[in-house]
């Protein structure tokens, strides 16, 4: 019993432990690692990935996948930039709205036409990217600096970057929805066994519809922050975001087969991958080693490899332990 419990606890909180160890390492080794500037820049930058990963986490918990989040974010950033002269709220609303539109198409394809999520969202990934390029005329769209639109991405509030607050609010909402609402419990039920869930009378179609819709909206929101932070809507940004988000969700211990997942662990997964980058930058700054930017993706890949192999071993042990008792 104790061994099973230990293994399941490690599987569950391993990512948090790893995150704390990495932060401890950085704090002991680098002078300004926990300085205000570094913390806020890490949070500001990674809040976009956090939002995208939150949507991905919900989609994956239903047993699906959303490959379109990166180009949806790009589309959101372009649309937000185009509407930014009208004011902060209109820019924000337009960007999120564009994301929701893509989410709506995904949701309709998956729940109405019953097309496999992988293929449906692969297609909308191409379509969203094409639409972003068309709207932006194949170049970056500069945002309006007079309307205050840039404050979303660049300003602080109560000492922390506004994007970090937005991401935090989204994660708290996500956590409440997952754990304390019937829709949230339904998400896990659908991922665990879709047919059984349907027979129990839960609205499977509506639940799936909502997760893709929400994922699109969150990706659009990430796009708004992107445009606001860098001062331009960027139609070719967001390439590979979907796979980064999947990596963060997997590192957080959510199973790609659905039915199991945690919002908090996903946030820890995003921060872990983000801070890993940050630590590498600091290490380069110390001058002991000099790793080019290209090493970072190699190290990220290695890191993902270690995590998934460990998870696979833990899962096998956990199954064996359950069988023994």
């Amino acid at each position, binding site marked *: 019993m104790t061994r099973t419990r230990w293994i399941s606890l490690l599987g569950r909180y391993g990512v948090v432990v790893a995150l704390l160890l990495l932060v401890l390492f950085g704090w002991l080794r680098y002078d300004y690692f926990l300085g205000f500037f570094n913390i806020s820049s890490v949070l500001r930058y990674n809040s976009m990935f956090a939002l995208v990963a939150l949507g991905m986490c919900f989609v994956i918990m239903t047993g699906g996948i959303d490959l379109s989040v990166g180009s949806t974010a790009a589309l959101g950033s372009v649309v937000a930039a185009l509407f930014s002269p009208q004011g902060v709220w209109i820019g924000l609303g337009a960007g999120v709205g564009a994301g929701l539109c893509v989410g709506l198409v995904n949701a309709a394809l998956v729940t109405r*036409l019953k097309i496999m999520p992988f293929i449906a969202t692969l297609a909308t990934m191409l379509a969203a990217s094409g639409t972003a390029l068309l709207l932006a005329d194949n170049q970056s769209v500069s945002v309006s600096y007079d309307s205050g639109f840039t404050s979303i991405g660049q300003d602080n509030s109560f000492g922390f970057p506004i994007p970090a607050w937005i991401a935090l609010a989204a994660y708290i909402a996500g956590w409440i929805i997952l754990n304390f609402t019937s829709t949230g419990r339904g998400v896990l039920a659908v991922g665990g066994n879709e047919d059984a869930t349907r027979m129990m009378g839960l609205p499977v179609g509506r639940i799936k519809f909502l997760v893709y819709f929400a994922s699109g909206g969150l990706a659009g929101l990430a796009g708004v922050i992107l445009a606001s932070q860098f001062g331009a809507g960027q139609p070719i940004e967001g390439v590979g975001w979907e796979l980064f988000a999947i990596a963060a969700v997997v590192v957080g211990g959510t199973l790609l087969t659905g039915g199991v997942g945690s919002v908090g662990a996903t946030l820890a997964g995003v921060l872990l991958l983000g801070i890993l980058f940050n630590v590498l930058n600091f290490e380069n700054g110390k001058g002991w080693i000099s790793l*080019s930017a*290209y090493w970072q993706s*190699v190290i990220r890949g290695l890191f993902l*490899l270690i995590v998934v192999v460990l998870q696979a071993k833990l899962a096998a042990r956990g199954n064996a332990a359950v069988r023994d008792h």
Partner: protein
Amino acid sequence: MTDTPQMARTTARRFDPFDFLARYGTLIALLLLILFNLAFTRNFATIQTLNVNLTQVCTIVIVAVGMTLVIATGGIDLSVGSLMAISGALAPMIFLGKIMPIGNIYLAVAAAMLVSIAVAGLFGLFNGWLISAFRIQPIVATLVLFIAGRGIAQVMTNGNLQTFRVPQFQFIGLGRVLGIPVQVILMLLIVLAAAWMLKRTVFGRQIIAIGGNERAAELSGIAVARVKLLVYAISGLCAGLAGLVVIAINSSSDANLVGLGMELDAIAAVAVGGTLLSGGKATIIGTLIGAMTIQLVRYTLLANGVPDAAALVVKAGIIILAVWIQQQGRAHA
């Protein structure tokens, strides 16, 4: 495609438009596109146009053949683009003598081709090992090399562009035999070999059996782990070869760009071609037709003045339409 004649006789008594479209829709679309272009696109019926389209579609088809086999087992391979970058980065380093000088240029080119394709194959084997030994889901297991693989290629070349003029090597991208581009011959050979293997060999039937029902395949004595290892290795080899063709055509190798987005093009070709993404039913010829249809759609749009960005949206629509029609066909059958 895998239906036996008896089944076809019992089910195809009444004409079912969806079933018909599901079987031949992509082929019909390809033929309609050709007719449309003959009528409306200027200078379409020329050797030049044929060559442009065939050379552009070649690398996608070569990668998509490996992808078809992987998908037939119920898996997926996201790493193909990164493996193309690795083989594309490694080959010039060998034949330009950056690793060790090789006196004879033919020897150097042969070594470059063999070693870089083999390395890509080994990485594919690594994917297969993760999937069969640790039971990691294919999408996650191949995500590792998708992320790390391009980084490896960039680290090897330090992110620098390698340019070269080595006709002996570039024969595979620029050469012609009897007027036919060499890479088109390579593509056809690979397509025919894979189609034969999938239909006529024990290994091919085992691939389909695993995709249909892995547990049943295992219980009936198929060495599932070994078949999966081989399938991912083949996908790696195909990607390695495609990487070489790309750099041979370009006379240069840029680790940041070689094979970028190829995994999606290949998966799209496989899906449009009629292979089931859940495994258990696969057609190599379908994949060839699927890739050519997607290519010709893009060509038709570009040749008639539609911007590339809009072509992306149309491509998305075609993927959805093709997959939807195939699903309807299965639902009615």
